[in-house]
């Protein structure tokens, strides 16, 4: 299976500011001081090998949208945040407008940052395309109708050319979609959210965002350990620091990098991907959090057992699972 992240930001899309770009250019030029960088190859090599990641890259600022490629002809997407717009552009470039496609969507929940990309998803305007939106909430369609009605948006849901279906899933009851077995699980978040586990040919990917882990009782923790069990990849809501998640921002419905490490280690997960990044954090801060998370895993493991691979999602990240 393959994963491609189109939107990794939580709550609200953000963009790199002019000052942010200038800071990166200045850092790059400073690092290049005294070097000749005689040709393009030398420049590329310098960018890739010598510059810190946060200087040569950016996490991007689109809200939640992750593509899961299970090898089938139909597409699978988790959430329809602002990252969906770029996915749509990519689809048109790849297939053109005339070749119909099927898109299978799995919605964590109906909060704005997870559905806001849909009115800007060009394939939804094209007749012949088929969009199947899976959700565990009782009436997902209402949220989409509200989003695409006056005064929020000029084009109503009924005006879209694609065939749009809403499919209500039951948590704990697996379904087979686009060659992948998909199981949902209820999570703690205002108005409920749901995580999804995708399995195919012995590989498993879990998408678990907007999920607070209060760890108040062992059975709650255990149910997530079971859901994550032996997954090859867990995409995990690590929006807050642990201190914030259990004090000021308690019951705001999000989790931390530390709890992500602990749950994944208990579950024997191979790879943890930090996700739903706090909009106020810049690239340097998100990079620092990644390094700290890697360090926490070392401390927690104490040299025993297999290491957990940890990465931090960024818009455009592709990963083979």
């Amino acid at each position: 299976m393959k994963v491609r992240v189109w939107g990794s930001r939580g709550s609200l899309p953000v963009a790199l500011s002019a000052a942010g770009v200038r800071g990166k250019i200045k850092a790059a030029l400073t690092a290049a001081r005294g070097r000749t960088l005689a040709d393009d190859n030398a420049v590329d090599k310098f960018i890739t090998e010598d510059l810190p990641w946060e200087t040569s890259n950016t996490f991007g600022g689109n809200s939640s949208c992750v593509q899961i490629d299970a090898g089938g002809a139909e597409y699978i997407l988790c959430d329809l945040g602002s990252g969906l717009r770029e996915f749509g552009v990519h689809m048109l470039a790849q297939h053109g407008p005339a070749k119909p496609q099927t898109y299978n969507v799995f919605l964590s929940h109906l909060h704005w940052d997870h559905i806001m990309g849909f009115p800007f998803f060009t394939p939804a305007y094209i007749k012949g395309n088929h969009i199947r939106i899976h959700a565990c909430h009782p009436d997902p369609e209402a949220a989409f109708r509200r989003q695409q009605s006056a005064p929020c948006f000029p084009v109503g849901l009924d005006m879209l050319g694609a065939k749009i279906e809403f499919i209500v899933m039951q948590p704990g009851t697996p379904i087979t979609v686009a060659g992948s077995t998909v199981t949902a699980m209820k999570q703690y978040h205002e108005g409920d959210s749901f995580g999804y586990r995708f399995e195919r040919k012995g590989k498993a990917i879990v998408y678990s965002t907007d999920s607070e882990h209060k760890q108040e009782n062992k059975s709650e923790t255990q149910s997530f350990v079971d859901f994550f069990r032996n997954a090859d990849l867990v995409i995990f809501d690590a929006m807050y620091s642990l201190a914030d998640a259990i004090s000021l921002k308690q019951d705001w419905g999000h989790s931390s990098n530390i709890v992500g490490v602990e749950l994944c280690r208990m579950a024997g997960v191979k790879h943890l991907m930090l996700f739903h990044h706090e909009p106020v954090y810049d690239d340097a801060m998100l990079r620092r959090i990644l390094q700290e998370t890697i360090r926490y895993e070392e401390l927690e493991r104490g040299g025993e057992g297999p290491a957990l691979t940890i990465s931090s999602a960024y818009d455009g990240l592709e990963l083979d699972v």
Partner: protein
Amino acid sequence: MNTEQGAPGGVAVFKASGRIDQNTAEAFQNALLDALAGASQGLVIDMAAVPFISSAGLRSLMVAARKAKADKIPLAIAALTPAVKEVFAISRFTAVIACHDDLATASAKLKG
């Protein structure tokens, strides 16, 4: 885990020991809340014998910090081991409870 009462009317010291994780956090929390109940003049948590603390242990500390605040009991932490110091920084817990290098500094701060 044990509590040593300082001079009468003085600051009490709670000596934590061992790894504090999901297996031990409950006992740690109970002992800590007991110590807090008997420490009206202030409590210092001595962490010198704690090699590691996980989220479960940090939650226990948060519970104690809330209780201390509600009961107006000064609370501080002293003598973090290097690994626990790192966990405090990574979890941003340094902003939750005052941490001091050693017991004497912590006690002095609470009395002051």
